[in-house]
């Protein structure tokens, strides 16, 4: 394929890779799976890239392809590119700005989010990424009203998980 297109893609993905890592962190529980999912998302992004038009933002376009891959397309594979090993799975919370109560609360929150189902995780992810309800409903393919109702239910479920 076109070398220039390839370079353009790799540059953009390298710049925006945080989005993919955050999705991997939400949807996988160990380092191998994290890297595996990252690779599959990269392949799917690359396959879709020739049709990507510059009029949309690269990052916005990425959300769909990456979430679709994580939720629907991803199947475990063993043939993975070895990348440097990181401690990728856990959310890091330690910060001098937090007192220990808030730190504990955050730890519990991240653990609770991990227990949500695939669709609920997508909702929370887009919400945390500061997406509007209209963008969230567009990405999921449901009505805006439904997206709001679902989000409220997720909030309720999280509360329940925290109190259990």
């Amino acid at each position, binding site marked *: 394929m076109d070398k220039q297109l390839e370079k353009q893609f790799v540059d953009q993905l390298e710049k925006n890779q945080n989005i993919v890592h955050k999705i991997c962190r939400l949807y996988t529980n160990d380092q191998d799976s994290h890297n595996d999912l990252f690779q599959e998302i990269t*392949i799917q992004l690359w396959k879709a890239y020739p049709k990507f038009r510059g009029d949309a933002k690269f990052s916005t376009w990425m959300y769909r392809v990456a979430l679709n891959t994580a939720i*629907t397309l*991803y199947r475990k594979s063993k043939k993975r590119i070895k990348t440097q090993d990181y401690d990728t799975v856990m959310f*890091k919370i330690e910060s001098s700005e937090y007192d220990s109560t808030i730190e504990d609360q955050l730890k519990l*929150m991240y653990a609770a989010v991990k227990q949500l189902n695939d669709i609920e995780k997508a909702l929370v992810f887009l919400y945390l990424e500061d997406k509007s309800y209209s963008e969230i409903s567009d990405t999921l393919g*449901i*009505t805006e009203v*439904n997206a709001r109702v679902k989000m409220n239910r997720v909030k309720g479920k999280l509360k329940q998980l925290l109190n259990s």
Partner: protein
Amino acid sequence: MDELELLKKDWKRQEASLPRINASDIYKMILKKSSSLTKWILIIAILEFVFWITISVAMIDKNYFEHLKSIHFYTINIILSVIHYGVLLFFIYWFYNNYRKIKTTDDIKRLMRNILKVRKTVNYYVIYNLAMSFIISVMVFIASVLYDPNLSKIWSADTSKNIWLIGAIIIFILVFLFVLWLFYKLLYGILLRRLHRNYKELNKLELRN
């Protein structure tokens, strides 16, 4: 404070702890082959097409045609074959058309719906093949009883034997269908379990709005 708002504030901070994959690793990754669900569905569908074509071709040899001629089934068989290959072409076209509609840039729900549609095409194809095999077997059986001298001898000799024969054929067909059903249930159950669950989850509440 709302817990989710607290999380939102921390979310940005998470970026500092995320891994970095460098450009050369990304280059290597895009050369790798995907192992996605849609790829598996495509592979299985192709195997299914090949399987049923092989079965219909494998049955053909000289004796087979001779036998068909002897039971006056030759012309009917040719007509059925033409129809069968026409239907096969239609299914392949239908499958290809639906498969092309699968796009990762669609919204999540539409992607799932399109994958399920592709799956259904292949299901219809399998049902068609089973129905066709069943109908042809029955037709050949009737023609054999009418025209095959060996079979008509057995047939008219003893009524209780006939009942056993029909019973055995029915049981054979039922067992065959059951094993096939089980195989499908297992294969696609495993492959599509997550998709079905998520699709249901997305559709929840949707009717009420």
